[in-house]
């Protein structure tokens, strides 16, 4: 059996559905094959990610771009297979690179999709982190023209950053004294009120630029405050 055949069995192996005979065969092969071991690790990571985030998949900032990238990868794999070029033995690295078939197995494509999704989410968090806030340096809004997202989409994205930093704050809260906890909660409720009020306004008037700006400001303030207190 070659690597391709073993990799076809990896999914069942990771899911615990492989027969004992297949399991023994695949495990023996994987122990001696670095490539298949990597594919197996990718599968394990994907399954673990899906189990950890069951039913909690957040939309990535630009789903269409993500799927286009995946689609391009698959197309590249197909066209690579069709236009395979014989590489001369003395060919340089550029020739090999440009004429590479870029054959990717399904696990690799799936792993790439997960990685893109994870990096896109992290990117969203860092955008929130880098936004002018707290110091009050700017007050620009996040109008639909800027990034093509609706207010709800933008709100949902920002909530991912909020959830991330909130988790870190909750871990540290036990160390805080009572006064600090009360101060933090009281101030956070002021920002939450601003978020809720502007969301209410936007539901009544979805194109209200004042409410959009306030929502944007308040969400940035919230992330900034959480971030600051997550360091305590």
């Amino acid at each position, binding site marked *: 059996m070659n690597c391709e055949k073993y990799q076809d069995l990896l999914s069942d192996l990771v899911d615990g559905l492989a027969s004992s005979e297949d399991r023994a065969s695949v495990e023996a092969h994987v122990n001696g094959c670095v490539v298949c071991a990597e594919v197996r690790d990718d599968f394990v990571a994907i399954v673990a990610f899906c189990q950890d985030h069951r039913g909690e998949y957040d939309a990535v900032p630009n789903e269409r771009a993500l799927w286009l990238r995946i689609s391009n990868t698959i197309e590249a794999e197909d066209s690579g297979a069709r236009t395979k070029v014989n590489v001369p033995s003395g060919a340089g690295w550029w020739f090999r690179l440009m004429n590479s078939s870029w054959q990717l197995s399904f696990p690799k494509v799936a792993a790439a999709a997960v990685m893109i999704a994870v990096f896109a989410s992290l990117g969203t968090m860092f955008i929130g982190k880098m936004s002018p806030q707290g110091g*009050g340096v700017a007050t620009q809004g996040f109008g639909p023209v800027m990034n093509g997202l609706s207010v709800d989409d933008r709100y949902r994205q920002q909530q991912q950053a909020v959830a991330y930093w909130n988790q870190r704050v909750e871990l540290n809260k036990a160390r805080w*004294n009572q006064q600090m906890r009360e101060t933090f909660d009281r101030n956070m409720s002021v*920002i939450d009120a601003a978020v809720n*009020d502007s969301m209410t306004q936007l539901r009544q008037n979805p194109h209200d*630029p*004042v409410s959009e700006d306030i929502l944007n400001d*308040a969400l940035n303030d919230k992330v900034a405050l959480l971030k600051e207190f997550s360091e305590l």
Partner: protein
Amino acid sequence: MFSIILTSISSSVFAQSQQRLSRNFPAGKNVRLELRNISGTITVETWAKDEIRITAEMDTRKATFNPRQTESGLVIDIVGDNRGKDVGDMNFKIQLPARSSVDLETRSGQISVNNIQGELVRAHIWTSGDIVLSGINAARVFATNTIGDIFFDGEFASGGTYEFKSGKGNITLRLPANCGFRLVATAPTKEIKMGPFWHPGMKLMGEGRRIIGDVGDGRASVTVTDYQGNINFLRR
């Protein structure tokens, strides 16, 4: 000489019981002071000497106070120096030359800055505390808190940038009659009182939740945002 004195002082760490410490640092006229406090009052005043005097009152002996020299001035990072420690309130009184820039930040407590004529005045309170900036004539001023009032009494320089933001508190700006600025003031409460600076050319947006318009020559940029409070303009 400045470096030697400052370095020798910077290297010392004062970890003593509740106490009041005063230290002087040589400084040029355009020095920049950065203070990042955890909790407590910060008061900044100017004087005629070319030096910075810092007086710190500390609640606890565990507090570390370790000023650091930078190319442009002095940095006091109480947050960084006391990470993971409960140091209670630290109250600062700072005296420095009028041409200084000050960048002040605390998680809670009051900030008061008087008579600064330098490039920058920044006062940021992460949570609760009032900000009072009086006699200010700086090219860039930023004052932000979450709960608390903000009061500014000063002048806007042509081409300068001024931002004031509070989550819950009143913002009051007291300005000379001849000042010129381009204003964006936002208050969901619709309580924006322009006083003598109002004129019919100003534009109301969002049913009065925002006012945009030029006052005088409109050369300074002024942004005022208040989520749950009033914005008031007064003439000196």
